[in-house]
């Protein structure tokens, strides 16, 4: 298996390199998306002949007084995205058992903390530094030197919270049995390497953004870059660490392991929904793209449709209004709309959300049936629907909005007469994204497992990670059953 993985990765990297060689010059309009801005908002990442870095901000403002509102917009959206960490913590905590809640809270707090430091040290430089062959960025380490600039810092904080989101998704998939120290190691790998490199390919001016189909691979706010990366690494983690004790009967039949708090799970879902209004609309990186209103509407409608669809499917199946699956459905709709949110109209967002709600149910049940234990449904929510989001963009993009700009060329999908080009770019991107993250994830978890040990001892798992790894039961005043 290891051999297979290595080969895949090498192939993938070669694909990347060759694509750069082949395409780099061919595609005149190939823009690193985030660098492109509407005319009213100058690029946050300055071009080659950089002006002097501006740590105070006065000279940047002088170039365009309209930047004040762009900064407000991007920062407020970044804050909302940050708050999603609380949402993930609550959803994961709520869907797991009381005896592991301190552990999950720590994981969610520390992937933000460690992820911040990792992305600060190297991740940001890899993702947005000066491009090398379409594969990797190479400057801005530790935000030193020329990176001490208000525009760079602004981009950093926004991208950082995205990186932390990718990292935190995994903690749900491997919950209730992963060693905490291994989790810290994994977090470094994701935030400093796996996420930034792939991110560079799509958002940092790398090769995927210059694919010679459609306008290159597009992913508005990160169905792929953030969610599929997180979901695929999570899948790798769930496979390598194996299922929880009791998840499968001797005969392989999956058992339900109910989560300890539906109120926290629902709260977390609301927080995520709320934060997603920063995630998607904020990804314009400019308030001067009034398209943000359309993005906000689409985000909300897809979430609503995802919840309704998941609830409906489950009701047909079991005559119960299944809260866990409904909450997953809402999140599935949000993940799916993340890539296409800027390029589709409201009815399409509803359709994308409905499909996402059905997909998440099928995916959750399928994964359990093949023996993968993902306690909170992270792989189905973020992985499966990350892929669906990327693809749906190639279908529903309606040709009213360009490549992070209101200017032509506009993005047009199959259903709107844009031909299959964009769809092909999306499928390629989705495949590369999944492979990259899944294979790297397998490597990271296998290496940790072989060298350090990935999983807690059986008694620790049975008595709860809280008592053993943290010494602090989450609810010491309550009479706990399991």
């Amino acid at each position: 298996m290891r051999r297979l993985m290595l080969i895949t990765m090498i192939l993938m990297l070669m694909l990347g390199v060759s694509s750069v060689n082949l395409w780099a010059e061919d595609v005149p309009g190939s823009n690193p998306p985030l660098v492109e801005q509407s005319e009213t908002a100058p690029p946050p990442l300055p071009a080659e002949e950089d002006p002097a870095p501006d740590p105070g901000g006065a000279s940047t403002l002088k170039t365009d007084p309209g930047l004040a509102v762009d900064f407000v917009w991007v920062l407020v959206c970044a804050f909302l995205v940050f708050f999603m960490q609380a949402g993930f913590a609550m959803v994961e905590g709520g869907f797991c058992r009381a005896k592991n809640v301190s552990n999950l809270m720590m994981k969610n707090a520390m992937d933000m903390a460690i992820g911040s430091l990792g992305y600060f040290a190297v991740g940001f430089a890899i993702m947005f530094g000066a491009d090398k062959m379409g594969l990797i960025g190479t400057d801005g380490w530790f935000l030193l030197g020329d990176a001490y600039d208000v525009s760079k810092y602004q981009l950093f904080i926004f991208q950082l919270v995205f990186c932390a989101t990718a990292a935190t998704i995994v903690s749900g998939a491997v919950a209730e049995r992963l060693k905490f120290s291994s989790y810290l190691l994994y977090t470094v790998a994701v935030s400093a390497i796996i996420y930034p490199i792939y991110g560079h390919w799509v958002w940092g001016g790398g090769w995927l953004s210059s694919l010679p189909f459609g306008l290159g691979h597009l992913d508005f706010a990160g169905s792929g870059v953030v969610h599929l990366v997180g979901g695929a690494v999570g899948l790798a983690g769930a496979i390598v660490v194996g299922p929880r004790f009791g998840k499968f009967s001797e005969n392989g039949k999956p058992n339900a392991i109910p989560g300890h708090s539906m109120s926290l799970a629902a709260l977390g879902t609301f927080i995520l929904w709320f934060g997603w209004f920063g995630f998607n609309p904020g990804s314009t990186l400019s308030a001067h793209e009034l398209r943000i209103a359309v993005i906000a509407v689409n985000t909300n409608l897809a979430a609503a449709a995802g919840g309704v669809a998941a609830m409906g499917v489950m009701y047909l199946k079991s005559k119960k209004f299944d809260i866990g699956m409904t909450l997953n459905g809402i999140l599935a709709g949000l993940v799916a709309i993340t890539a296409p949110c800027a390029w589709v109209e409201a009815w399409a967002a509803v359709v994308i959300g409905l499909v996402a709600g059905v997909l998440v149910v099928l995916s959750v049940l399928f994964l359990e049936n093949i023996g993968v234990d993902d306690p909170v449904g992270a792989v189905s929510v973020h992985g499966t629907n990350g892929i669906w989001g990327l693809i749906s963009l190639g279908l529903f993009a309606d040709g009213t909005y360009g490549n992070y700009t209101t200017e032509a060329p506009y993005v047009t999908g199959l259903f709107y007469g844009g031909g299959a080009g964009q769809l092909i770019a999306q499928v390629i991107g989705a495949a590369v994204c999944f492979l990259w993250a899944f294979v790297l994830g397998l490597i990271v978890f296998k290496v940790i497992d072989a060298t350090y040990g990935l999983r807690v001892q059986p008694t620790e798992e049975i008595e709860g990670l809280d008592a053993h790894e943290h010494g602090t039961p989450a609810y010491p005043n309550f009479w706990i059953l399991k």
Partner: protein
Amino acid sequence: MQKVTAVIRLEKFEEVRNALERKGYPGMMLTRIEGHGQQKGLTQQFRGRQYTIEMLPKFKLEIVVKDEDVKEIVQTIIEAARTGSTGDGKIFVSPVTEVYRIRTGETNEAAL
């Protein structure tokens, strides 16, 4: 003296307690237990996966009384706790040899 232990439905507790109080037996210990008997469990589901709760929540009531009061107590509980469907619960009687009141040190029947 005897200990009367009754397993009853959660929602019947208020009625049983009131009935006992009317008869003049205020002292009791109430424990939240999970019971299993002929009553069949509830099918539940979590994130699409079904499971059965075989153990159902019940209250266990323990009352220590003089031997001669056992009959009345049992009768009172049976009347107040019965619904007629499975899961109504059971009553067990068992001997108690000594009783002490911690506050005063009184013993046996004086301590009840």
